[in-house]
Protein backbone atom coordinates (compact mmCIF):
# COMPACT_ATOMS: atom_id res chain seq x y z
CA UNK A 1 0.00 0.00 0.00
CA UNK A 2 1.29 3.41 -0.87
CA UNK A 3 -0.42 6.17 0.97
CA UNK A 4 -0.50 9.87 0.43
CA UNK A 5 1.39 12.20 2.73
CA UNK A 6 -0.39 15.52 2.97
CA UNK A 7 0.76 18.49 5.01
CA UNK A 8 -1.84 20.89 6.33
CA UNK A 9 -0.33 24.31 6.65
CA UNK A 10 -1.24 27.98 6.67
CA UNK A 11 1.60 30.27 7.59
CA UNK A 12 -0.48 32.34 9.94
CA UNK A 13 -1.41 30.85 13.27
CA UNK A 14 -4.90 30.37 14.56
CA UNK A 15 -6.64 29.84 11.24
CA UNK A 16 -7.62 26.27 12.02
CA UNK A 17 -4.85 23.99 10.81
CA UNK A 18 -5.13 21.66 13.76
CA UNK A 19 -8.92 21.61 13.63
CA UNK A 20 -8.79 20.93 9.92
CA UNK A 21 -6.26 18.13 10.41
CA UNK A 22 -8.32 16.44 13.11
CA UNK A 23 -11.53 16.72 11.14
CA UNK A 24 -10.06 15.69 7.81
CA UNK A 25 -8.36 12.72 9.45
CA UNK A 26 -11.57 11.68 11.14
CA UNK A 27 -13.66 12.22 8.03
CA UNK A 28 -11.27 10.19 5.89
CA UNK A 29 -11.32 7.41 8.47
CA UNK A 30 -15.13 7.52 8.45
CA UNK A 31 -14.89 6.90 4.73
CA UNK A 32 -13.07 3.68 5.49
CA UNK A 33 -9.53 4.81 4.87
CA UNK A 34 -6.59 4.02 7.10
CA UNK A 35 -5.34 7.34 8.39
CA UNK A 36 -2.55 8.49 10.64
CA UNK A 37 -2.28 12.11 11.72
CA UNK A 38 1.06 13.47 12.87
CA UNK A 39 1.33 16.51 15.06
CA UNK A 40 4.48 18.26 13.89
CA UNK A 41 3.99 21.23 16.18
CA UNK A 42 6.64 20.12 18.63
CA UNK A 43 6.54 22.08 21.86
CA UNK A 44 3.02 23.37 21.29
CA UNK A 45 1.05 20.24 20.78
CA UNK A 46 -2.69 20.61 20.33
CA UNK A 47 -3.89 17.91 18.01
CA UNK A 48 -4.20 15.38 20.81
CA UNK A 49 -6.43 17.76 22.76
CA UNK A 50 -8.69 18.43 19.80
CA UNK A 51 -9.01 14.70 19.22
CA UNK A 52 -9.52 13.99 22.91
CA UNK A 53 -6.53 11.68 23.18
CA UNK A 54 -4.40 13.74 25.53
CA UNK A 55 -4.47 11.30 28.42
CA UNK A 56 -3.36 8.36 26.29
CA UNK A 57 -0.01 9.73 25.26
CA UNK A 58 2.94 7.64 26.35
CA UNK A 59 5.43 8.12 23.55
CA UNK A 60 5.60 10.94 21.04
CA UNK A 61 7.03 11.87 17.67
CA UNK A 62 10.46 12.77 18.98
CA UNK A 63 10.71 9.47 20.82
CA UNK A 64 9.99 7.63 17.58
CA UNK A 65 12.49 9.62 15.61
CA UNK A 66 15.16 9.25 18.25
CA UNK A 67 14.52 5.52 18.32
CA UNK A 68 13.41 5.44 21.95
CA UNK A 69 10.30 3.52 21.03
CA UNK A 70 8.82 1.64 18.11
CA UNK A 71 6.68 3.47 15.62
CA UNK A 72 3.59 1.54 16.63
CA UNK A 73 4.07 2.32 20.28
CA UNK A 74 3.66 6.01 19.64
CA UNK A 75 0.56 5.63 17.52
CA UNK A 76 -2.60 6.25 19.50
CA UNK A 77 -5.80 4.76 18.18
CA UNK A 78 -8.73 7.13 18.00
CA UNK A 79 -11.65 6.66 20.37
CA UNK A 80 -14.25 6.53 17.65
CA UNK A 81 -12.52 5.42 14.49
CA UNK A 82 -10.62 2.18 14.54
CA UNK A 83 -8.52 3.04 11.53
CA UNK A 84 -7.43 6.48 12.73
CA UNK A 85 -4.18 6.92 14.58
CA UNK A 86 -2.39 9.90 16.09
CA UNK A 87 1.32 10.41 16.54
CA UNK A 88 1.48 13.26 19.05
CA UNK A 89 4.17 15.89 19.24
CA UNK A 90 6.55 16.18 22.15
CA UNK A 91 5.59 18.98 24.45
CA UNK A 92 8.88 19.25 26.29
CA UNK A 93 11.10 19.55 23.25
CA UNK A 94 11.42 22.09 20.49
CA UNK A 95 11.23 22.13 16.70
CA UNK A 96 14.95 21.55 16.29
CA UNK A 97 14.68 18.11 17.85
CA UNK A 98 13.96 16.58 14.47
CA UNK A 99 15.29 16.98 10.99
CA UNK A 100 13.22 17.07 7.80
CA UNK A 101 14.89 13.88 6.58
CA UNK A 102 13.96 12.00 9.73
CA UNK A 103 10.33 12.98 9.45
CA UNK A 104 10.37 12.08 5.77
CA UNK A 105 11.72 8.63 6.55
CA UNK A 106 9.02 8.13 9.14
CA UNK A 107 6.33 9.21 6.72
CA UNK A 108 7.65 6.89 4.05
CA UNK A 109 7.38 4.02 6.52
CA UNK A 110 3.86 5.08 7.45
CA UNK A 111 2.85 5.33 3.81
CA UNK A 112 3.42 1.60 3.51
CA UNK A 113 0.71 0.93 6.09
CA UNK A 114 -1.75 3.75 5.72
CA UNK A 115 -3.81 5.35 2.99
CA UNK A 116 -3.34 8.83 4.34
CA UNK A 117 -0.61 10.42 6.43
CA UNK A 118 -1.72 13.89 7.49
CA UNK A 119 0.86 16.22 8.99
CA UNK A 120 -0.31 19.10 11.13
CA UNK A 121 2.19 21.84 10.36
CA UNK A 122 3.13 24.45 12.95
CA UNK A 123 2.50 28.11 12.25
CA UNK A 124 5.28 30.21 10.83
CA UNK A 125 7.78 29.48 8.11
CA UNK A 126 10.74 28.45 10.22
CA UNK A 127 12.23 25.11 11.18
CA UNK A 128 9.03 23.37 12.18
CA UNK A 129 7.39 24.37 8.92
CA UNK A 130 10.38 23.12 6.94
CA UNK A 131 10.28 19.80 8.81
CA UNK A 132 6.62 19.35 8.04
CA UNK A 133 6.65 20.29 4.38
CA UNK A 134 9.86 18.40 3.72
CA UNK A 135 8.09 15.15 4.53
CA UNK A 136 4.95 15.75 2.49
CA UNK A 137 4.11 15.03 -1.12
CA UNK A 138 0.99 17.16 -1.20
CA UNK A 139 -0.15 20.24 0.65
CA UNK A 140 -3.43 21.61 1.84
CA UNK A 141 -3.49 25.26 2.74
CA UNK A 142 -5.88 26.59 5.33
CA UNK A 143 -6.74 30.24 5.41
CA UNK A 144 -9.42 32.49 6.75
CA UNK A 145 -10.99 35.31 4.75
CA UNK A 146 -8.75 37.91 6.37
CA UNK A 147 -6.17 39.98 4.60
CA UNK A 148 -3.40 38.97 6.96
CA UNK A 149 -4.11 35.26 6.68
CA UNK A 150 -4.27 35.49 2.89
CA UNK A 151 -1.01 37.40 2.70
CA UNK A 152 0.65 34.68 4.75
CA UNK A 153 -0.97 32.00 2.64
CA UNK A 154 0.44 33.61 -0.47
CA UNK A 155 3.91 33.55 1.02
CA UNK A 156 3.48 29.94 2.04
CA UNK A 157 2.37 28.96 -1.46
CA UNK A 158 5.61 30.47 -2.73
CA UNK A 159 7.60 28.47 -0.20
CA UNK A 160 5.69 25.27 -0.94
CA UNK A 161 6.34 25.62 -4.63
CA UNK A 162 9.96 26.29 -3.85
CA UNK A 163 10.18 22.92 -2.13
CA UNK A 164 8.50 21.09 -4.98
CA UNK A 165 5.04 20.96 -3.47
CA UNK A 166 3.22 22.33 -6.46
CA UNK A 167 -0.46 23.04 -6.68
CA UNK A 168 -1.44 23.18 -3.04
CA UNK A 169 -5.17 23.01 -2.41
CA UNK A 170 -7.02 25.62 -0.44
CA UNK A 171 -9.48 25.36 2.42
CA UNK A 172 -11.10 28.63 3.40
CA UNK A 173 -12.07 28.38 7.01
CA UNK A 174 -14.47 30.45 9.07
CA UNK A 175 -16.40 32.10 6.31
CA UNK A 176 -19.09 34.27 7.79
CA UNK A 177 -21.78 34.18 5.17
CA UNK A 178 -23.58 37.21 6.49
CA UNK A 179 -20.48 39.36 6.29
CA UNK A 180 -19.75 38.08 2.80
CA UNK A 181 -23.27 38.84 1.74
CA UNK A 182 -22.92 42.43 2.87
CA UNK A 183 -19.56 42.76 1.20
CA UNK A 184 -17.71 43.12 4.48
CA UNK A 185 -15.69 39.95 4.08
CA UNK A 186 -13.72 38.63 1.15
CA UNK A 187 -15.59 35.91 -0.61
CA UNK A 188 -14.32 32.71 -2.12
CA UNK A 189 -13.78 34.18 -5.57
CA UNK A 190 -11.69 37.09 -4.29
CA UNK A 191 -9.44 34.75 -2.38
CA UNK A 192 -9.08 32.24 -5.17
CA UNK A 193 -8.30 35.00 -7.63
CA UNK A 194 -5.60 36.42 -5.41
CA UNK A 195 -3.97 33.14 -4.47
CA UNK A 196 -4.64 31.42 -7.82
CA UNK A 197 -4.80 27.93 -6.37
CA UNK A 198 -7.37 25.20 -6.59
CA UNK A 199 -10.02 25.37 -3.91
CA UNK A 200 -10.80 22.28 -1.91
CA UNK A 201 -13.61 23.53 0.24
CA UNK A 202 -15.19 26.23 2.31
CA UNK A 203 -15.89 25.86 5.99
CA UNK A 204 -18.44 28.24 7.47
CA UNK A 205 -17.84 29.88 10.79
CA UNK A 206 -19.59 27.68 13.26
CA UNK A 207 -19.54 27.58 17.01
CA UNK A 208 -20.02 23.84 16.92
CA UNK A 209 -16.36 23.69 15.95
CA UNK A 210 -15.33 25.35 19.16
CA UNK A 211 -17.54 23.30 21.43
CA UNK A 212 -16.51 20.13 19.68
CA UNK A 213 -12.84 20.98 20.08
CA UNK A 214 -13.35 21.68 23.74
CA UNK A 215 -15.05 18.33 24.21
CA UNK A 216 -12.31 16.57 22.30
CA UNK A 217 -14.63 15.21 19.63
CA UNK A 218 -13.96 16.43 16.10
CA UNK A 219 -16.91 18.32 14.70
CA UNK A 220 -17.45 15.86 11.85
CA UNK A 221 -19.10 13.57 14.39
CA UNK A 222 -21.75 16.23 14.91
CA UNK A 223 -24.36 15.58 12.26
CA UNK A 224 -26.02 18.93 12.79
CA UNK A 225 -22.92 21.10 12.50
CA UNK A 226 -22.53 22.81 9.12
CA UNK A 227 -18.77 22.92 9.54
CA UNK A 228 -18.75 19.19 10.17
CA UNK A 229 -20.56 18.46 6.94
CA UNK A 230 -18.23 20.87 5.16
CA UNK A 231 -15.26 18.84 6.39
CA UNK A 232 -16.96 15.63 5.28
CA UNK A 233 -17.31 17.06 1.78
CA UNK A 234 -13.71 18.24 1.82
CA UNK A 235 -12.59 14.76 2.82
CA UNK A 236 -14.59 13.32 -0.05
CA UNK A 237 -12.86 15.73 -2.44
CA UNK A 238 -9.46 14.79 -1.03
CA UNK A 239 -10.41 11.18 -1.53
CA UNK A 240 -11.12 11.83 -5.18
CA UNK A 241 -14.89 12.20 -5.23
CA UNK A 242 -16.59 14.93 -7.19
CA UNK A 243 -18.64 16.81 -4.66
CA UNK A 244 -20.37 20.00 -5.76
CA UNK A 245 -19.84 23.12 -3.76
CA UNK A 246 -22.82 24.04 -1.67
CA UNK A 247 -24.34 27.44 -1.93
CA UNK A 248 -22.91 29.96 0.46
CA UNK A 249 -26.11 31.95 0.72
CA UNK A 250 -27.34 32.29 4.26
CA UNK A 251 -30.44 30.34 5.06
CA UNK A 252 -33.40 32.46 4.19
CA UNK A 253 -36.33 30.54 5.47
CA UNK A 254 -39.33 32.60 6.46
CA UNK A 255 -38.67 31.97 10.11
CA UNK A 256 -35.08 33.14 9.78
CA UNK A 257 -36.20 36.27 8.03
CA UNK A 258 -38.78 36.90 10.71
CA UNK A 259 -36.12 36.40 13.35
CA UNK A 260 -33.86 38.78 11.48
CA UNK A 261 -36.60 41.36 11.41
CA UNK A 262 -37.16 41.22 15.13
CA UNK A 263 -33.43 41.09 15.81
CA UNK A 264 -33.34 37.51 16.93
CA UNK A 265 -31.29 36.16 14.08
CA UNK A 266 -29.46 33.34 15.68
CA UNK A 267 -27.17 31.11 13.78
CA UNK A 268 -27.75 31.88 10.18
CA UNK A 269 -25.05 29.57 9.01
CA UNK A 270 -25.09 27.84 5.75
CA UNK A 271 -23.52 24.90 4.13
CA UNK A 272 -20.40 25.19 2.14
Amino acid at each position, binding site marked *: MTGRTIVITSGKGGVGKTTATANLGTALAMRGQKVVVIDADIGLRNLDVIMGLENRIVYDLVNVIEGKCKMHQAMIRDKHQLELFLIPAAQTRDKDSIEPEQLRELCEKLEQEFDYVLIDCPAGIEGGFKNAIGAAKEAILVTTPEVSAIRDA*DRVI*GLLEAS*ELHRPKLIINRINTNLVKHGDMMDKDDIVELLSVEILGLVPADEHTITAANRGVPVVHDKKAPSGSAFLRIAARVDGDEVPFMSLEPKTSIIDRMKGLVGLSGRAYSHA
Partner: protein
Amino acid sequence: MTQNSTKIQVVQVSGRGINVEFIIDDVVPFDQIRKGVRDYLIENRGMWSGGAIAVNVGNRLTSRDELNELKKIIEAGSGLTVIRFSCSPETMATTPDAPDPEPIRPLQHNEVIIPDRKPTVIAQAQVIPDSTPVAPKIIEPLQAFRTPKTLPQHNEVIVPEPQIEGTLPPGMRAAPLIDRNEKPHQTVLPINEVSQAEQPPTSYPQHNEVESGPPVVEDDEQPLLMDEERATKSQQASYLQSQRDTALLVKSTCRSGEIIRHQGDVVVMGDVNPGAEVIATGDILVFGCLRGFAHAGCEGNSKATIVALSLGSPRVQIGPHVGVSSSNAAQPKHIDSGPLIAYVRRRSIHVALFEGRFFKYGKGVLYDG
Protein backbone atom coordinates in the same frame (compact mmCIF):
# COMPACT_ATOMS: atom_id res chain seq x y z
CA MET B 1 21.13 18.77 -22.52
CA THR B 2 23.09 15.63 -22.51
CA GLN B 3 26.47 16.93 -21.56
CA ASN B 4 26.80 14.58 -18.63
CA SER B 5 26.33 11.46 -20.63
CA THR B 6 29.75 11.49 -22.22
CA LYS B 7 32.33 9.82 -20.10
CA ILE B 8 33.97 7.32 -22.34
CA GLN B 9 34.67 9.33 -25.41
CA VAL B 10 35.87 12.86 -25.48
CA VAL B 11 33.56 13.81 -28.31
CA GLN B 12 30.04 12.72 -28.78
CA VAL B 13 27.77 13.69 -31.61
CA SER B 14 24.17 14.53 -31.07
CA GLY B 15 21.55 15.89 -33.36
CA ARG B 16 19.21 18.45 -31.97
CA GLY B 17 16.58 19.32 -34.49
CA ILE B 18 18.37 20.10 -37.69
CA ASN B 19 21.49 21.13 -35.83
CA VAL B 20 24.26 18.69 -35.25
CA GLU B 21 26.21 19.16 -32.09
CA PHE B 22 29.55 17.98 -30.78
CA ILE B 23 29.35 17.34 -27.09
CA ILE B 24 32.76 17.67 -25.54
CA ASP B 25 33.47 15.77 -22.36
CA ASP B 26 33.61 18.22 -19.48
CA VAL B 27 35.62 16.18 -17.03
CA VAL B 28 38.93 15.36 -18.66
CA PRO B 29 41.57 18.10 -18.80
CA PHE B 30 41.65 20.41 -21.79
CA ASP B 31 44.92 18.99 -23.11
CA GLN B 32 43.30 15.62 -23.55
CA ILE B 33 40.32 17.27 -25.17
CA ARG B 34 42.61 18.82 -27.75
CA LYS B 35 44.13 15.49 -28.58
CA GLY B 36 40.86 13.63 -28.30
CA VAL B 37 39.09 15.94 -30.70
CA ARG B 38 41.93 15.62 -33.24
CA ASP B 39 41.95 11.86 -32.95
CA TYR B 40 38.22 11.72 -33.25
CA LEU B 41 38.21 13.83 -36.37
CA ILE B 42 40.94 11.77 -37.95
CA GLU B 43 39.11 8.59 -37.06
CA ASN B 44 35.89 9.79 -38.61
CA ARG B 45 37.47 11.58 -41.49
CA GLY B 46 34.92 10.43 -44.01
CA MET B 47 31.92 11.47 -42.01
CA TRP B 48 32.02 15.19 -42.58
CA SER B 49 31.92 17.08 -45.80
CA GLY B 50 31.43 20.61 -44.67
CA GLY B 51 28.47 22.19 -43.03
CA ALA B 52 27.64 23.82 -39.77
CA ILE B 53 28.25 22.35 -36.37
CA ALA B 54 27.53 23.45 -32.84
CA VAL B 55 29.80 22.61 -29.95
CA ASN B 56 28.59 21.95 -26.46
CA VAL B 57 31.27 22.12 -23.79
CA GLY B 58 29.06 20.94 -20.97
CA ASN B 59 30.05 21.99 -17.48
CA ARG B 60 33.57 22.92 -18.43
CA LEU B 61 34.79 26.40 -17.77
CA THR B 62 36.38 27.28 -21.03
CA SER B 63 38.07 30.53 -21.81
CA ARG B 64 37.66 32.37 -25.05
CA ASP B 65 41.10 31.25 -26.23
CA GLU B 66 40.31 27.65 -25.55
CA LEU B 67 37.10 27.94 -27.48
CA ASN B 68 38.93 29.47 -30.40
CA GLU B 69 41.49 26.70 -30.28
CA LEU B 70 38.76 24.11 -30.24
CA LYS B 71 37.12 25.80 -33.16
CA LYS B 72 40.34 25.82 -35.15
CA ILE B 73 40.97 22.16 -34.43
CA ILE B 74 37.51 21.17 -35.51
CA GLU B 75 37.49 23.30 -38.60
CA ALA B 76 40.96 22.22 -39.67
CA GLY B 77 40.26 18.57 -39.00
CA SER B 78 36.89 18.23 -40.60
CA GLY B 79 36.04 21.08 -42.90
CA LEU B 80 33.07 21.84 -40.72
CA THR B 81 32.18 25.35 -39.71
CA VAL B 82 31.66 25.92 -36.02
CA ILE B 83 28.73 28.23 -35.67
CA ARG B 84 28.00 28.05 -32.04
CA PHE B 85 29.30 27.13 -28.63
CA SER B 86 27.06 26.29 -25.77
CA CYS B 87 27.53 25.21 -22.23
CA SER B 88 25.45 24.12 -19.30
CA PRO B 89 23.73 26.75 -17.19
CA GLU B 90 25.83 26.53 -14.05
CA THR B 91 28.92 27.40 -15.98
CA MET B 92 27.52 30.76 -16.82
CA ALA B 93 28.13 32.46 -13.54
CA THR B 94 31.75 31.47 -13.32
CA THR B 95 33.09 31.73 -16.82
CA PRO B 96 36.46 33.42 -16.54
CA ASP B 97 35.52 35.96 -19.16
CA ALA B 98 32.95 37.55 -16.95
CA PRO B 99 34.03 41.13 -16.31
CA ASP B 100 33.58 41.21 -12.57
CA PRO B 101 33.82 37.72 -11.25
CA GLU B 102 31.34 38.06 -8.46
CA PRO B 103 31.54 35.01 -6.27
CA ILE B 104 28.49 32.84 -6.57
CA ARG B 105 26.70 33.50 -3.38
CA PRO B 106 23.99 31.18 -2.21
CA LEU B 107 20.75 32.51 -3.57
CA GLN B 108 18.37 34.10 -1.19
CA HIS B 109 15.07 32.39 -1.26
CA ASN B 110 12.88 33.55 -4.09
CA GLU B 111 15.29 36.13 -5.27
CA VAL B 112 15.80 36.57 -8.90
CA ILE B 113 19.38 37.47 -9.46
CA ILE B 114 20.14 39.13 -12.69
CA PRO B 115 23.65 39.17 -14.03
CA ASP B 116 25.34 42.33 -15.08
CA ARG B 117 24.18 44.52 -17.86
CA LYS B 118 26.80 43.63 -20.42
CA PRO B 119 26.98 39.90 -20.60
CA THR B 120 30.38 38.94 -21.83
CA VAL B 121 30.06 35.33 -20.98
CA ILE B 122 30.47 33.07 -23.94
CA ALA B 123 27.71 30.63 -23.67
CA GLN B 124 26.71 30.36 -27.22
CA ALA B 125 29.09 32.25 -29.33
CA GLN B 126 28.14 33.00 -32.84
CA VAL B 127 31.38 33.72 -34.54
CA ILE B 128 32.12 33.38 -38.17
CA PRO B 129 35.61 33.59 -39.62
CA ASP B 130 36.50 36.36 -42.01
CA SER B 131 36.49 34.22 -45.09
CA THR B 132 33.12 32.67 -44.60
CA PRO B 133 30.36 34.40 -46.45
CA VAL B 134 27.34 35.12 -44.43
CA ALA B 135 24.95 32.50 -45.55
CA PRO B 136 21.34 32.60 -44.49
CA LYS B 137 21.73 29.23 -42.90
CA ILE B 138 24.15 30.62 -40.41
CA ILE B 139 21.73 33.29 -39.40
CA GLU B 140 19.35 30.64 -38.32
CA PRO B 141 20.32 30.27 -34.69
CA LEU B 142 19.49 33.87 -34.06
CA GLN B 143 16.23 33.78 -35.87
CA ALA B 144 15.39 30.83 -33.77
CA PHE B 145 14.93 33.23 -30.93
CA ARG B 146 11.77 34.43 -32.51
CA THR B 147 10.28 31.14 -33.49
CA PRO B 148 8.77 29.04 -30.76
CA LYS B 149 9.80 25.74 -32.30
CA THR B 150 13.41 26.07 -31.24
CA LEU B 151 13.34 28.20 -28.17
CA PRO B 152 16.83 28.68 -26.87
CA GLN B 153 18.02 27.19 -23.68
CA HIS B 154 17.81 29.93 -21.22
CA ASN B 155 21.53 29.98 -20.81
CA GLU B 156 22.38 30.75 -24.35
CA VAL B 157 23.94 33.99 -25.24
CA ILE B 158 24.79 35.45 -28.58
CA VAL B 159 28.19 36.97 -28.57
CA PRO B 160 27.63 40.67 -28.88
CA GLU B 161 28.48 42.89 -31.76
CA PRO B 162 31.90 44.49 -31.82
CA GLN B 163 30.54 47.90 -30.94
CA ILE B 164 29.09 46.43 -27.82
CA GLU B 165 31.74 44.00 -26.94
CA GLY B 166 34.76 45.14 -28.88
CA THR B 167 36.98 42.29 -27.80
CA LEU B 168 36.50 39.64 -30.36
CA PRO B 169 39.60 37.61 -30.98
CA PRO B 170 41.80 38.44 -33.96
CA GLY B 171 41.05 36.62 -37.14
CA MET B 172 37.38 36.63 -36.48
CA ARG B 173 34.71 39.12 -36.77
CA ALA B 174 31.24 38.92 -35.52
CA ALA B 175 28.96 38.09 -38.33
CA PRO B 176 26.34 40.60 -39.25
CA LEU B 177 23.70 38.51 -37.70
CA ILE B 178 20.66 39.88 -39.39
CA ASP B 179 20.34 41.58 -42.68
CA ARG B 180 18.78 44.87 -41.80
CA ASN B 181 16.75 45.21 -44.91
CA GLU B 182 15.27 41.79 -44.72
CA LYS B 183 14.29 41.78 -41.13
CA PRO B 184 10.57 41.31 -40.89
CA HIS B 185 9.78 42.50 -37.39
CA GLN B 186 12.18 44.89 -35.87
CA THR B 187 10.50 45.58 -32.62
CA VAL B 188 10.64 42.11 -31.24
CA LEU B 189 13.33 41.96 -28.66
CA PRO B 190 14.87 38.76 -27.53
CA ILE B 191 13.43 37.81 -24.26
CA ASN B 192 14.95 35.69 -21.64
CA GLU B 193 12.55 33.40 -20.03
CA VAL B 194 12.31 32.48 -16.46
CA SER B 195 9.67 29.96 -15.76
CA GLN B 196 9.13 26.81 -13.89
CA ALA B 197 9.08 24.79 -17.00
CA GLU B 198 12.35 26.01 -18.36
CA GLN B 199 14.43 25.65 -15.25
CA PRO B 200 17.53 23.73 -16.08
CA PRO B 201 17.31 20.42 -14.33
CA THR B 202 20.67 20.63 -12.68
CA SER B 203 20.67 24.18 -11.49
CA TYR B 204 18.90 25.01 -8.29
CA PRO B 205 16.60 22.90 -6.25
CA GLN B 206 14.06 25.57 -5.51
CA HIS B 207 12.02 26.63 -8.43
CA ASN B 208 11.51 30.21 -7.33
CA GLU B 209 15.17 30.74 -6.89
CA VAL B 210 15.51 31.64 -10.45
CA GLU B 211 18.69 33.00 -11.72
CA SER B 212 17.75 34.47 -14.98
CA GLY B 213 20.04 33.44 -17.71
CA PRO B 214 22.35 36.09 -18.91
CA PRO B 215 20.46 38.56 -21.02
CA VAL B 216 20.62 38.04 -24.72
CA VAL B 217 22.69 40.76 -26.15
CA GLU B 218 21.16 42.95 -28.76
CA ASP B 219 21.85 42.24 -32.34
CA ASP B 220 21.83 44.68 -35.17
CA GLU B 221 18.21 45.56 -34.84
CA GLN B 222 18.78 47.88 -31.97
CA PRO B 223 20.85 50.45 -33.82
CA LEU B 224 18.30 50.24 -36.58
CA LEU B 225 15.55 51.06 -34.21
CA MET B 226 17.65 53.88 -32.95
CA ASP B 227 18.00 55.28 -36.43
CA GLU B 228 14.32 55.28 -36.95
CA GLU B 229 13.43 56.80 -33.70
CA ARG B 230 16.19 59.29 -33.31
CA ALA B 231 14.40 61.73 -35.53
CA THR B 232 11.40 61.84 -33.28
CA LYS B 233 12.26 62.53 -29.69
CA SER B 234 15.30 62.45 -27.57
CA GLN B 235 13.20 61.06 -24.79
CA GLN B 236 12.53 57.98 -26.79
CA ALA B 237 16.15 57.68 -27.68
CA SER B 238 17.10 57.53 -24.06
CA TYR B 239 14.39 54.99 -23.51
CA LEU B 240 15.74 52.89 -26.33
CA GLN B 241 19.13 53.20 -24.83
CA SER B 242 17.75 51.53 -21.77
CA GLN B 243 16.26 48.87 -23.99
CA ARG B 244 19.73 47.63 -24.73
CA ASP B 245 19.25 45.62 -21.63
CA THR B 246 16.99 42.75 -22.26
CA ALA B 247 13.65 41.87 -20.87
CA LEU B 248 12.99 39.24 -18.27
CA LEU B 249 9.86 37.20 -18.73
CA VAL B 250 8.41 35.81 -15.53
CA LYS B 251 5.83 33.20 -16.38
CA SER B 252 4.26 32.77 -13.00
CA THR B 253 2.56 34.75 -10.30
CA CYS B 254 4.93 36.67 -8.08
CA ARG B 255 3.93 35.77 -4.58
CA SER B 256 4.48 37.50 -1.30
CA GLY B 257 8.14 37.48 -0.32
CA GLU B 258 9.50 37.10 -3.83
CA ILE B 259 11.81 39.74 -5.19
CA ILE B 260 12.54 40.12 -8.86
CA ARG B 261 15.44 42.38 -9.69
CA HIS B 262 16.47 42.83 -13.23
CA GLN B 263 18.74 44.96 -15.32
CA GLY B 264 16.35 45.84 -18.11
CA ASP B 265 12.62 45.43 -18.54
CA VAL B 266 10.48 42.92 -16.70
CA VAL B 267 7.36 41.25 -18.01
CA VAL B 268 5.28 39.28 -15.52
CA MET B 269 2.72 36.90 -17.00
CA GLY B 270 0.59 36.78 -13.90
CA ASP B 271 -0.22 38.79 -10.86
CA VAL B 272 2.22 40.51 -8.58
CA ASN B 273 0.72 39.78 -5.21
CA PRO B 274 0.95 41.96 -2.11
CA GLY B 275 4.33 41.58 -0.49
CA ALA B 276 6.14 40.79 -3.73
CA GLU B 277 8.59 43.23 -5.26
CA VAL B 278 9.56 43.84 -8.85
CA ILE B 279 12.54 46.10 -9.35
CA ALA B 280 13.83 46.85 -12.83
CA THR B 281 16.07 49.40 -14.47
CA GLY B 282 13.66 49.57 -17.38
CA ASP B 283 9.93 49.24 -17.72
CA ILE B 284 7.69 46.88 -15.82
CA LEU B 285 4.82 45.20 -17.59
CA VAL B 286 2.39 43.08 -15.63
CA PHE B 287 -0.15 40.97 -17.48
CA GLY B 288 -2.26 40.72 -14.42
CA CYS B 289 -2.98 42.66 -11.32
CA LEU B 290 -0.14 44.59 -9.79
CA ARG B 291 -0.71 44.55 -6.06
CA GLY B 292 2.85 44.42 -4.81
CA PHE B 293 5.65 46.94 -4.91
CA ALA B 294 7.00 47.88 -8.32
CA HIS B 295 10.00 50.07 -8.99
CA ALA B 296 10.68 50.87 -12.62
CA GLY B 297 13.76 52.76 -13.73
CA CYS B 298 15.43 51.93 -10.46
CA GLU B 299 18.71 53.48 -11.54
CA GLY B 300 17.07 56.85 -11.76
CA ASN B 301 15.34 56.67 -15.12
CA SER B 302 12.17 58.70 -14.73
CA LYS B 303 11.15 57.90 -18.29
CA ALA B 304 10.43 54.32 -17.37
CA THR B 305 6.84 53.24 -17.03
CA ILE B 306 4.81 50.63 -15.25
CA VAL B 307 2.01 49.00 -17.22
CA ALA B 308 -0.47 46.65 -15.59
CA LEU B 309 -3.90 45.30 -16.37
CA SER B 310 -4.99 46.50 -13.00
CA LEU B 311 -3.12 48.63 -10.54
CA GLY B 312 -3.81 48.03 -6.89
CA SER B 313 -0.33 48.56 -5.62
CA PRO B 314 -0.03 50.40 -2.33
CA ARG B 315 3.21 51.95 -3.54
CA VAL B 316 4.90 52.22 -6.89
CA GLN B 317 8.12 53.96 -7.73
CA ILE B 318 9.52 55.22 -11.00
CA GLY B 319 13.06 56.43 -10.78
CA PRO B 320 13.17 58.57 -7.65
CA HIS B 321 9.46 59.35 -7.66
CA VAL B 322 7.13 57.49 -5.36
CA GLY B 323 3.41 57.03 -5.86
CA VAL B 324 1.07 55.94 -3.13
CA SER B 325 -2.34 54.49 -3.79
CA SER B 326 -5.33 56.17 -2.33
CA SER B 327 -6.09 54.73 1.04
CA ASN B 328 -9.73 53.79 0.53
CA ALA B 329 -10.11 52.64 -3.05
CA ALA B 330 -7.66 50.51 -4.95
CA GLN B 331 -7.76 52.80 -7.93
CA PRO B 332 -9.76 55.82 -9.08
CA LYS B 333 -13.15 54.94 -10.41
CA HIS B 334 -12.99 56.40 -13.87
CA ILE B 335 -9.91 54.45 -14.86
CA ASP B 336 -10.86 51.11 -13.48
CA SER B 337 -11.11 49.27 -16.78
CA GLY B 338 -8.42 48.39 -19.24
CA PRO B 339 -4.69 48.30 -18.87
CA LEU B 340 -3.14 51.20 -17.03
CA ILE B 341 0.14 52.95 -17.39
CA ALA B 342 1.91 54.74 -14.59
CA TYR B 343 4.36 57.42 -15.63
CA VAL B 344 6.12 60.42 -14.21
CA ARG B 345 4.73 63.82 -14.96
CA ARG B 346 5.97 66.88 -13.14
CA ARG B 347 7.82 64.81 -10.60
CA SER B 348 4.82 62.86 -9.48
CA ILE B 349 3.33 59.62 -10.68
CA HIS B 350 0.23 59.72 -12.82
CA VAL B 351 -1.91 56.85 -13.99
CA ALA B 352 -3.82 56.75 -17.25
CA LEU B 353 -5.38 54.20 -19.54
CA PHE B 354 -2.67 52.57 -21.56
CA GLU B 355 -2.60 53.79 -25.14
CA GLY B 356 0.82 52.71 -26.26
CA ARG B 357 4.28 53.11 -24.92
CA PHE B 358 5.05 56.31 -26.83
CA PHE B 359 1.67 57.91 -26.58
CA LYS B 360 1.97 61.45 -25.35
CA TYR B 361 0.27 61.20 -22.01
CA GLY B 362 -1.08 64.33 -20.49
CA LYS B 363 -2.38 64.77 -17.03
CA GLY B 364 -3.60 61.46 -15.74
CA VAL B 365 -4.89 60.59 -12.33
CA LEU B 366 -2.37 61.45 -9.69
CA TYR B 367 -1.22 58.33 -7.87
CA ASP B 368 -0.76 60.05 -4.59
CA GLY B 369 -2.95 58.99 -1.71
